[in-house]
């Protein structure tokens, strides 16, 4: 039998404070659940059994001594397999990083340790974060706790599934084109992609450097706020990190949306190509906010239709260069028996990378090549500027923008693998935010056919506090986030 699911942070803290449980017990339960239910879900690629328990005991000692470090002290959490952690295998669910053990901590990992959080394991993902289903993993696919025949979304599917299944209350992922928000929607949890530069990328294995951003998964907006607070903030080791101070997100959760203006971009509510049930749930969610006093304003983001094309040009271009370092020379997988340098490169990379990664490296190499750069990469950067201006104009008229997170609920495993283009097109609602560098959150807003639907809220740069306040207010008014997937109820 599986251990019961872990509760939210306030529930866990209350139990800890009352002495009804200990960090060691919570971490033990998380590890146990990760090993049983987690294995059925393909949620984890690596568990830190011994180290996590030792860290939990240290946290218990701190609690006893009254020297707690933060709201996350002693809490079991999980990180995606693309976070560097000293002494741990960091493989990005890729064969090419087989056997690589990182010698340094990502800033996010370092800050989690400083906060006392206990990283129990590393979660499954699409190889190098390229995908929307967590099927492109060298370690096998992850599954959706609401229906094991369906994908959990991706690329941070393991983190989303682990939180949805109650294995950990908080997990971290990375979002490049929707890799936090989309799996959060598919798994019925909160997933927050912060403003570009809000969380340091130092130690996050790069997919597309100008888009990648670390963010948390949790069941409640309040937990996501605590998780974000632990990792956000300026880091001199990341030149693109923002210097702005981190506000007290938890203190901003007033539940008040009475003066809020919610923008509804008409380009995101076109009925064609969208599950009508998804649109209905999102409209209901907007009505809920309206009933709580928020004003709704329709507006336009005119360049939206170019976002997917721009995203796949820029993300693949950057990826083709970022992934050049995986060459079999210094670490990771090296082809056996190669006698010439070129052969060593070709075979190591051919054997080490999966099909989707190869496809994107090829695309990106093409996009940057002489004669095509202006037509593709430079043009894409220009349209990216237009997309950013769309949002600037929109946020002069509203506080947050509400849209669906995905066009459909989670699809079946294997359903889209043969058709990469339709997989790319399913990112239509999530790619614009990273292109504009703005924050976005997906929160559960109901179900279609027993599968969760996500409401996406987008805000202007550094408006994480507003997004969390609206998400929290919505969760105070609804119970969708309290539903447990059948798999996790056990």
């Amino acid at each position, binding site marked *: 039998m599986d251990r019961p699911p872990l509760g939210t942070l306030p529930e866990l803290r209350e139990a800890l404070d009352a002495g009804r449980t200990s960090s060691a017990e919570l971490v033990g339960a998380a590890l146990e659940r990760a090993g049983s239910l987690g294995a059925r879900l393909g949620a984890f690629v690596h568990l830190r059994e011994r180290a996590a328990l030792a860290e939990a005991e240290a946290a218990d000692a701190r609690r006893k001594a009254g020297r707690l470090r933060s709201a996350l002290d002693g809490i079991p959490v999980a990180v995606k397999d693309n976070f*560097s952690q000293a002494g741990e295998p960091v493989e990005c669910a890729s064969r090419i990083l087989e056997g690589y053990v990182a010698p340094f901590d990502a800033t996010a990992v370092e800050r989690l340790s400083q906060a006392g959080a206990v990283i129990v394991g590393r979660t499954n993902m699409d190889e190098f974060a390229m995908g929307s289903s967590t099927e492109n993993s060298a370690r096998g696919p992850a599954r959706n706790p609401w229906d094991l025949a369906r994908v959990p979304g991706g690329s941070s599917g393991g983190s989303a599934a682990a939180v949805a299944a109650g294995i950990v209350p908080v997990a971290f992922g990375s979002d490049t084109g929707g890799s936090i928000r989309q799996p959060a929607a598919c798994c019925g949890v909160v997933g927050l992609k912060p403003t570009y530069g809000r969380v340091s990328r130092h130690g996050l294995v790069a997919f597309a450097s100008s888009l990648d951003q670390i963010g948390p998964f949790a069941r409640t907006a309040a937990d996501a706020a605590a998780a974000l607070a632990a990792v956000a903030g300026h880091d001199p080791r990341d030149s693109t990190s923002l210097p702005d101070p981190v506000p007290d997100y938890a203190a901003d959760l007033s539940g008040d949306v009475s003066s809020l203006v919610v923008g509804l971009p008409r380009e995101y509510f076109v009925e064609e190509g969208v599950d009508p049930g998804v649109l209905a749930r999102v409209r209901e969610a907007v009505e809920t906010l309206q009933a709580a006093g928020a004003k709704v304003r329709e507006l336009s983001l005119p360049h939206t239709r170019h976002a997917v094309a721009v995203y796949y040009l820029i993300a693949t271009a950057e990826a083709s260069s970022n992934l050049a370092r995986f060459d079999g020379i210094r670490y990771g997988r090296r082809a056996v028996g190669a006698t010439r340098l070129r052969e060593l490169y070709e075979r190591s990379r051919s054997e080490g990378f999966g099909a989707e990664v190869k496809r994107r490296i090829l695309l990106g190499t093409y996009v940057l090549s002489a004669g095509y*750069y202006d037509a593709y990469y430079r043009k894409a950067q220009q349209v990216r500027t237009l997309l950013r201006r769309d949002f600037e104009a929109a946020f002069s008229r509203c506080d947050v923008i509400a849209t669906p997170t995905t066009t459909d609920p989670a699809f079946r495993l294997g359903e889209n693998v043969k058709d990469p283009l339709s997989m790319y097109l399913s990112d239509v609602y999530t790619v614009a935010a990273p292109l504009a560098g703005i924050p976005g959150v997906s929160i559960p807003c109901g179900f279609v056919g027993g599968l969760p639907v996500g409401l996406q809220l987008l805000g202007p740069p550094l408006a994480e506090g507003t997004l969390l306040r609206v998400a929290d207010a919505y969760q105070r008014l609804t119970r969708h986030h309290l539903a447990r997937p059948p798999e996790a109820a056990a």
Partner: protein
Amino acid sequence: MSAHPHPDYEVVIGLETHVHMKTRTKLFCGCEVKYGDEPNHHTCPTCLALPGALPVLNEQAVDFALRAALAAGAEIRPSSIFARKNYFYPDLPKGYQISQYEEPYCTGGSVEIEANGATRRVRLTRIHMEEDAGKSVHAGGDSLVDLNRAGTPLLEIVTEPDLRSAEEAGAYLRTLQSILRYLDVSDVDLEHGHFRCDVNVSLRPHGETRYGTRAELKNLNSFRFIKEAIEAETARQADVLDAGGTVQQCTLRYDPKTRTTSVMRLKEDAHDYRYFPDPDLIPLAIDEARIARARAAVPELPAARRARFQQEYGLSAEDAATTTSSWTGSVFFEAAAKEHGDGRTVVKWFLRDVAHALKEQQLELEDAQRQFTAGALARLIRLVDQGRITAAVARELLPELVRSGGDPETLVAARGLETLSDAGALEQAVDAVLAENAAMVARIRAGEDKLVNALMGQVMRRTQGKADPGAVRAILARKLAGR
């Protein structure tokens, strides 16, 4: 192969010079820039390109680069971009080099050179910052990679096609070397690979205004090779043109053993480096305050100092050029000249006798000046001027002074090296020498005047160089005349 301009063609040369900046740490990480240590000792996640590592720009490198730009009178851009130059090689850990491409931190500027007795202004296209690669070592069947050098900050200084001979190219490089040393941004130490040059060469008939097709000589690392390679390539292209052929745009290597150039790759095989702005680095913003700080760190440059030394200290053009060829030398000379008061006297001692003593002691002025001060040199010369010691004694003292330092007056007093001018003692010494050299005395009296110098020398030796040479000469003359 001729060192002179080709009779039928004008040679057109442009140079791309890469110099190591002498920053304490690498361009994008905190690893020390240091040579000669164990391979891969000075490395970290960033310069090893471990997954997740990020670059952070070295601000000292920017300040050094600014100094170089200001010295060349280049235009500094308020915002510039670092780009990725993508290619695969084992000593390039990231699979790309971070360099500046479309928007370098400065453009334009020039370097004034003197060649073949004329002054010319060589225009610069641009200067940009970039990182160096590591080093591949091929040993037996193995290839080994040392990444100590990977990430070392470089300046790439690119000229317009303004040079017209190997001599001018050489003069440009020596001038550049001296300027960069004055600026203290690079040691331009050729032996340690601080310096590499790509040379573009093309020919055109005299009088033609369009440029011919150029060939690029890659990776030359000594002034001599550059000169030879230009000469060899000039001869090769002239042969092609003389035979009615056309020069192909290509990249060449120079083989110093055979003194020939050979094609590495033709234009159509050129790498596609897929340059694009590095998204890990934000645009480099340079404001006026920073430029002003850099400007304050630009010292008087060699050409200006040369002219000033001629004017202020009355040095000859040649002495001024030699004195200012190194920053340390020029500073040392000037301090000694100021202390002593007569630059023309000091320059003789400095360029001849100090140089000789340093060579004898196998010391560089940079090291010797820790114990041997310009003040000591000035005081030593003044002792000679005052007749308190002879020039010979001063020369004898110099090797010891450059090696161990010390105050000349104290040394002279402690060892009793003052000039011997006591008439009685000098007469005695001369008499002894004359007595020992009766045959020579006879020959002198028979008209062989030159032999007097030999007797002088003997008297000086007898007095350990302390004898006042004027007095000795007078006594000798008197005694030889039989008085």
